[in-house]
């Protein structure tokens, strides 16, 4: 079976990992760094992803997308409150957010796909093989739409997503593999944009999730914003200046806030500096760790209620927890560690690199799926209750939250009027009583044969697969015939739309690959030309005239091919030049050998 890689598609940073002889490893880039900033920039010279794109946050903020994960599977209304924080233009189409960049619109899965492609490329370069299969992690508290959007992103990137796995459970796999612990653990995963808590039982290689809870809109981003807002207010009152009107300065402020937060995990105070627009100088301010902690205490506090709920759902108290594992960059904050320790009454475990542990766990899960690891098995749960809307707009629960997946539920439907030919079904996810307070996942119309009321019996099966994604099938109990259902997702791309995006992405991929090959060929041709010119000037006199002439001709042929777009022509001319210049390089080699020997003789004499 082809290799499956594990991908942590994070709000702030993304990583790709693989299993190397039973040990999960994160794949570094050419610069040796393992994290790819989840930033995408559409520049005039093409698409940039990662560190290079991050540089564009300040230069072209309106064309540089970050924290795209916050928009996955969401409608515009869902993120209304934070639109002001993002410098790029957001619209909505078919219940899906679209981002306007360079006059084109992109859906969040398309932007995420660009990050995934970069990771794919990175893995391919490192492992020297094609990568087409992946396990991708998502926050445990992601709903069906958000999971589906992540899967779509994988498809658009040319990856078969063999499993969507929850981030805290992925972390537990890496933790379990390394520490070989048995018992009950709590994984506290506080990342850039999301918070998750999962309670697991580890026993004989089985990782059984007992309960999970979280907030998919709570993370380090919110802490950065709090700091940025403080400075924004201070700048406003000191200079009568609204920095919010300057997107590039806003980005600089946001990044400075993030850096200050990170510094304050190690230091007790730090200096923040923000350049002001229109030559108005710079604003500096000292921030102490104490100040930061009182500024964001309520944000950290918001992570504790989900922890209590998860414990309650698992039927446990904090005394039952043997170990608390910290995951995600935000857990580096001393305040977070303190609050977690207070809640659980024990020192949290932080021997694992909180940035890498999720990707490592995804690699472990990938290895389980490919049949490499056979002694470990993850039994995960669905984070939210699944139900349907019934009479009076009430949600009737079919699969309660924290049910182990795969899980299914069957419901029998019938008609209330004679000759009725359809029943409308509205699928919901959430914990509230009323349908309108829960997340609408999809609607579909069940086809029913025209019969007297109450006679038709259609059995609908709702199945949540091991990815936490819902599948719906229907069966006419009278005929035993299976009915295909076209489910229209409320907040997702339709199948045809995803297909179109995959096609587009393949087209771009071909162009991408072609242009990369051209760039490489030109670079190679350039260094060959330089080397040959050097050889000619150093050893031209060592070869006959006709060889020199032939080499000169081959050089000019390659130089003109290099100006063109034909990769094969460049490569052919390069091969010809190498062939023609062989006598020259042989002569040079002989000459240098001779000199070397002469030199030795000379030194022997003296």
């Amino acid at each position, binding site marked *: *079976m082809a290799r499956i890689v594990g991908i942590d598609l994070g709000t702030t940073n993304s990583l790709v990992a693989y299993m190397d002889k039973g040990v999960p490893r994160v794949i570094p880039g050419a610069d040796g760094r393992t994290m790819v900033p989840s930033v995408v920039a559409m520049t005039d010279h093409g698409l940039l992803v990662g560190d290079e794109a991050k540089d564009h946050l300040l230069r072209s903020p309106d064309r540089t997308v970050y924290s795209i994960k916050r928009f996955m599977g969401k409608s515009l209304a869902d993120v209304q409150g934070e639109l002001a924080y993002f410098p790029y233009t957001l619209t909505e189409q078919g219940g899906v957010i679209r981002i306007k960049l360079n006059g084109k619109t992109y859906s969040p899965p398309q932007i995420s796909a660009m990050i995934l492609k970069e990771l794919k490329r990175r893995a391919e370069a490192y492992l020297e093989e094609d990568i087409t299969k992946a396990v991708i992690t998502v926050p445990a508290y992601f709903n069906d739409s958000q999971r589906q959007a992540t899967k779509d992103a994988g498809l658009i990137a040319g990856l078969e997503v*063999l*499993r969507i796995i929850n981030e805290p459970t992925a972390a537990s796999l890496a933790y379990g593999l390394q520490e070989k612990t048995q018992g009950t653990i709590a994984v506290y995963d506080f990342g850039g944009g999301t918070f998750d808590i999962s309670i697991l039982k580890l*026993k*004989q290689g*089985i990782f059984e999730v007992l309960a999970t809870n979280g907030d998919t809109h709570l993370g380090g981003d919110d802490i950065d914003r709090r700091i940025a807002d403080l400075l924004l207010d201070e700048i406003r009152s000191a200079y009568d200046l609204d920095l919010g009107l300057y997107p590039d300065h806003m980005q600089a402020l946001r990044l400075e806030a993030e850096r200050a937060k990170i510094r304050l995990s190690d230091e007790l105070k730090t200096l923040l500096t923000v350049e002001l627009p229109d030559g108005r100088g710079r604003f500096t301010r000292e921030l102490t760790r104490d100040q930061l902690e009182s500024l964001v205490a309520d944000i950290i506090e918001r992570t504790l209620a989900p922890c209590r709920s998860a414990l309650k759902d698992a039927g446990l108290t904090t005394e039952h927890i043997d170990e608390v594992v910290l995951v995600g960059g935000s857990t580096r904050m001393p305040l977070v560690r303190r609050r977690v320790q207070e809640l659980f009454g024990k020192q949290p475990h932080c021997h694992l690199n909180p940035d890498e542990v999720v990707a490592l766990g995804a690699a472990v*899960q990938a290895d*389980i*799926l*490919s*049949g490499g690891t*056979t002694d470990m*098995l*993850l*039994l995960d749960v669905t984070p939210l209750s699944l139900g*349907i*809307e*019934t*009479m009076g707009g009430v949600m*009737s629960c079919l699969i309660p939250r924290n*049910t*182990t*997946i*795969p*899980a*299914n539920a*069957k*419901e*029998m*439907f*019938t*008609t*209330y009027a004679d000759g009725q030919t359809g*029943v*409308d*079904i*509205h699928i919901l996810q959430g914990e509230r009583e009323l349908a309108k307070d829960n997340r609408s996942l999809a609607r579909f119309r069940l086809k029913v044969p025209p019969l007297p009321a109450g006679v038709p019996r259609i*059995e609908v099966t709702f*199945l949540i*697969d*091991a990815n936490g994604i819902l599948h719906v099938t229907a069966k006419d109990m009278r005929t035993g015939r299976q009915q295909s259902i076209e489910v229209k997702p409320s907040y997702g791309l339709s199948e045809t739309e995803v297909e179109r995006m995959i096609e587009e992405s393949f087209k771009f991929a071909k162009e991408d690959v072609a242009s990369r090959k051209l760039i490489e060929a030109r670079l190679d041709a350039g260094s060959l030309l330089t080397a040959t010119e050097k050889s000619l000037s150093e050893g031209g006199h060592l070869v006959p005239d006709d060889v020199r002439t032939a080499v000169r001709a081959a050089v000019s042929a390659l130089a003109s091919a290099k100006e063109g777009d034909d990769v094969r022509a460049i490569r052919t001319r390069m091969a010809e030049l190498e062939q023609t210049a062989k006598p020259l390089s042989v002569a040079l080699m002989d000459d240098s050998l001779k000199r070397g020997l002469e030199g030795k003789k000379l030194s022997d004499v003296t």
Partner: protein
Amino acid sequence: MNQPTPSGGSRNVQMARSMCWHCQSEVAGEYFCERCVKVQPVSKETDYFTCLGLPRRLTIDPAVLEAKYYERSRAFHPDFYLNKTEAEQAISLDNAATLNTAYRTLRDPVQRAEYLLDLEAGSVKTIRTSPPADLFEEILELQDTLDAYRAGDHSSETGRRLRARLEAERGALERRQAEMEDELQKLFVEWDALQDRGEADGHARMERDRLLRRMREILSNRTYVKNIVNDLVETIG
């Protein structure tokens, strides 16, 4: 939208003897065909006890149940079928989903008993599901007191008097809950013993009906008591 009707369907006891979907050799409730080693779908007629390889008893050692569940999860989980055919993947998915439901149902003693009562339905269909008159009266009265307490001033003389009464009631109801749990446990043991003896005479049949009836009664009363206790806890802490 129509009110969905709960799925019924007969839950039969006997294990289906059937043919392997792949090589057509005979399989008798095994999970894997002996000849072609293909995974077999858990039959719709298989009850949750059989699914987990346990006898149909009400007293179950949680450690044994968990061990069985883990063992079967290793056999069925879709994670281990990614290299297999689509048909096998579909079976693994369905089996794993059924196994998870079976485990969830049997893990909780009350759900386990409810499930068994459903399985044994027929002889106990006529059991009344409304609470006995005395319990009903008591709950109604308590509801009134609760309403009065909620609406009134908690610090007033009446408020304090009502609270004291509610606290006393809560204590009494919690004791009653404990008694019910105890009796349920005893009934479980009696039921299991009856099953173990395996007698099929008239006396055994009567005994069986009596036990089922009593369990049904306690289970439904237990729900009423539980709900009112929850209300009490919510109001007076």
